[in-house]
């Protein structure tokens, strides 16, 4: 059971209040008519599904009804940060890789 910090309610709440709504930062093509079937299919159906750091959207369905972003490790379920819609993550797979040699493994 996840315990998730809602950046709008500014509190950590139980998973029951939320629903998972898929990968974050998938932008709708600005001019769908202008792109190829392949590019449209990529937008529609293909998601990164990484093992490890994943940026994803959650919906605070039983709370403030805001969507927000979560940086979560899909293997350990550790949540590294949550951030508001429109913001960018400060922690990414790349940033953690860079930090790893100096940092500890915990």
């Amino acid at each position, binding site marked *: 059971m996840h315990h998730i910090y809602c950046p709008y309610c500014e509190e950590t709440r139980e998973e029951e209040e939320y629903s998972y709504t898929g990968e974050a930062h998938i932008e709708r*093509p600005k001019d*769908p008519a202008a792109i190829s*079937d392949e590019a*449209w299919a990529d*937008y*529609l159906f293909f998601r990164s599904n990484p093992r490890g750091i994943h940026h994803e*959207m959650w919906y605070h*369905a039983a709370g403030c*009804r805001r969507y927000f972003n979560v940086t979560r490790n899909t293997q350990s379920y550790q949540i590294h940060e949550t951030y508001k819609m429109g913001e960018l993550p400060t922690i990414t797979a790349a940033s953690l890789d860079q930090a790893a040699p100096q940092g500890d493994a915990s």
Partner: protein
Amino acid sequence: MSQVNRLATGGRIDRSKPMSFSFNGKTYHGFDGDTLASALLANGVGIVGRSFKYSRARGILGHGAEEPNALMQLHTGNAAVPNPRATQVELFDGLVSGSTNGWPSVEFDLMEWVGKMGGKMMPPGFYYKTFMAPQKMWMTYEKFIRKAAGFGKLSLAPDPDTYDKINAHCDVIVVGAGPAGLTAALEAGRSGKRVIIVDEQNEFGGTLLANNQTVDGVDAAQWAQQATAQLTDMSNVVVMPRTTAFGYYDHNFVCALERRTDHLGPVSTSGSRQRLHRIRAHQVILATGAIERPLVFGNNDLPGIMLANSVSTYINRYAVVPGNRCVVMTTNDSGYQTALDIQAAGRTVVAVVDSRHAPDGRLVQQAKAAGIEIMTGHGVTEAQGSKRVVGAIVAPLDEAGDTLTGPAKTLSCDLIAVAGGWSPVVHLSCHTGSRPVWQEDIAGFVPGPSIQNQHLAGAITGDYKLSQALNAGVQAGAAAVGVESAHVFDCGDESEGAAQALYLIPHTKPVSRAPKQFVDFQNDVTAAGIELAAREGFQSIEHVKRYTAMGFGTDQGKTGNVNGMAIVAKTLNKSIAETGTTIFRPAYTPVTFGALGGRDVGVLLDPARHTAMHPWHVANGAKFENVGQWKRPWYFPQQGETMQQTLNRECLAVRNSVGILDASTLGKIDIQGKDAREFLNRVYTNAWSKLAPGKCRYGLMLKEDGMIFDDGVTACLSDQHFLMTTTSGGAAAVLGWLELWHQTEWPELEVYFTSVTDQWATCSFAGPNSRKVLEKLCTDVDLSAEAMKFMDYREGTVAGIKARIFRISFTGELSFEVNVPADQGHYMWQKLMEAGEEFGITPYGTESMHVLRAEKGFIIAGQDTDGSMTPQDCLMGWAVSKTKSFSFLGERSFSRPDTARADRKQLVGLKPIDPTVVIPEGSQIVMDPNQPIPMDMMGHVTSSYWSECLGHGIAMGTVKGGCDRMGQTVYCPQADGRVLAAQICSPVFYDPKGDHHHD
């Protein structure tokens, strides 16, 4: 006194409270404070069950959660409880218990002979190898195997008890109230933070309750009582005995089962029997202790062979000595304590058999001084006996414990206490994904690194000395609340000799031919079986587990796993660290389904949502249908009517006069803002820029893949104010969908959405007389056909209530919807019924609504569509705008190759050739009924009804390329052999020109 093994003094039982109980039909006696296991042992009961696979006689091995054999059947009738461990059942007066298996009885079990004769023929994988072919016989085999294997039995009657759940939050949870847990909780509690401490036993203290050491000079058990009292006095500490933390989940979420009344009687007389606590903790302290390991030797499962520490616990805590002549088999110093305890209880210690060649710890010296015979460098290779151990065959071992070095001799005994070392209880730490790591110096697995806010204290880390555990608890408690503590306990622990890592004691015969050497008692897994699995190529420990069933089920490998892994490692010539361990899953010990269900049963299983008019529907005999969570009137039968007769009457009333439907359940979303129109343009297929105030429009909502997701009518209340309706089941999903697009892609659009589903009660009345009904109640709106056209919206006063009036139709008839604030919905409904009386106004339910809309070919999103239908597939291209500048949701997908295929399934009308036939919904559609199976499936029937006004059956269905097949005959083969033929036609069966609703 019939309690032959009960000591006259000592123990934590209350001899002033005698209790009687029954086991397998015989009456026995025990005392308050006993467990069922201690009481059975006190009465000299040896055999408590039969084993799972070989049906061997089994006795009590342990004294707690680790017990693999003594699974009981408790209570009778509807209170029956299958499979609790006798070691965890508190005795109460009148307790009725029995074995879960054994036929005709546990003492004389016919299946044992099958096990003996067939034992060699039942290797691991036996069931896979033997019973899989022919496959169709499996059901027959399984029935026999299940009966033979003997699980406990559930009553088929409803459980008379109630169960509930509660959510708890704390700064620190301490799991286990042994020495480490108690000091951890005391330390954390002193900080004032919120602390919960749970322990599975009725009394806090754990090993302190059966320990003859002292803590800071106080008797251990007495110290435990004092510590518990201190905790109970702290208002910030919640003390929960009889509570098992059975699962440890992500982000420090712990589930614990509290047994509230199990110890009082078979059925609770006050409140819930068990309560599931869902605990969110900032910090978790695991002080779960360790479980003693048995050793693997021939016939090591005979009744009378027990864990040494359990024997000590029975003596010291329950005043029960489970034998008269005892051999202690040990690989470490702790077995000597048991020998001393047995001697102190006045029974004979035949010998301590120690695998080590030169043990010299404090306890060894004490045993020597007490005159106990010690056989160093020896091992018990085999136990003798059939229903009870009668002797131990003992032989000398080499230093490594690998090889026998001399002749064996037999020691006569009726109890073998086995001390094979300790296994930390790492189960909970594994639940969150942490893999245990092998620690050579303690010959055991300890919890590995964890990303949870987790602390460990005591025997779980291999700190087996009492002072170590107490002090580790202090440090863990302090760390969990962010303070420092220098408190150090003194228990007078002295040095212990090193333990030997020994698991399987060699036999004169090879493992494959020696008498059965059990590893996992509950699943009947033997050393030979594990060796065979390894030889057959199962080299991963996970595969060995699944092939042999070692550590399966309720046992979760508590006693057997480490021995099994050691045998695998040895067979593969690897170290235990290399072969590794399987991990443990929740639940640590079994949890009743009742507790998992809690109060979410019966009427509380799922919320039933009611409209404001619900009491009227109930009072007027409605049958209800579930639509999402809503209870909607399905139909309103009158006395003596069949359902079809009701539907015919209801539908004809709408077609000929007037009917009334409660449409309050439709989702309603209030939309305000200057960009509301633009937003609607983007989420609907059609255009909204020019919809004038006072007008309504039907809209189709698509997902980005172009498939229909929801539909409904949206009214323009004023230029920047709209009211959207959705399907009854889709309201929450649609609101979430609108918010998703607004919040993530188009936050610049100035628009707000608010759910008003519950605000408005909606009376929909339809039929040629519907205007006349409304005219009687509403005088401030011109309701004439010219003034209020089809798809118009007006505000007005109806029966004195300010109302929103819509002229929309889902029946094909002249129809109005009156929306009033739900507080007045019941009143409005009654007023409309009164006003309509002279026209025979007829309430109708969802079933008639379905018939009426199907006669008109109107779809129901979710019934005629299934997430794979485009508007074009539903012949609704008319609802798709081709001129909007913004590429609305789903539009781009229309030109995807798959969406644009000509042979897609399309929604068409189906008219049965035999007019009396109603084709079952879901029927498959084929073109050639004589084609051999498998036939080419062309589609299926989505809606099908009897139309009383048309006098024949009608249906809608999807058919590949259906639009180009108008007039063709299709066939619907039925399971009963009938083949129902139908002609493809327009789905609009009734009033194709739409004259009626435009009247």
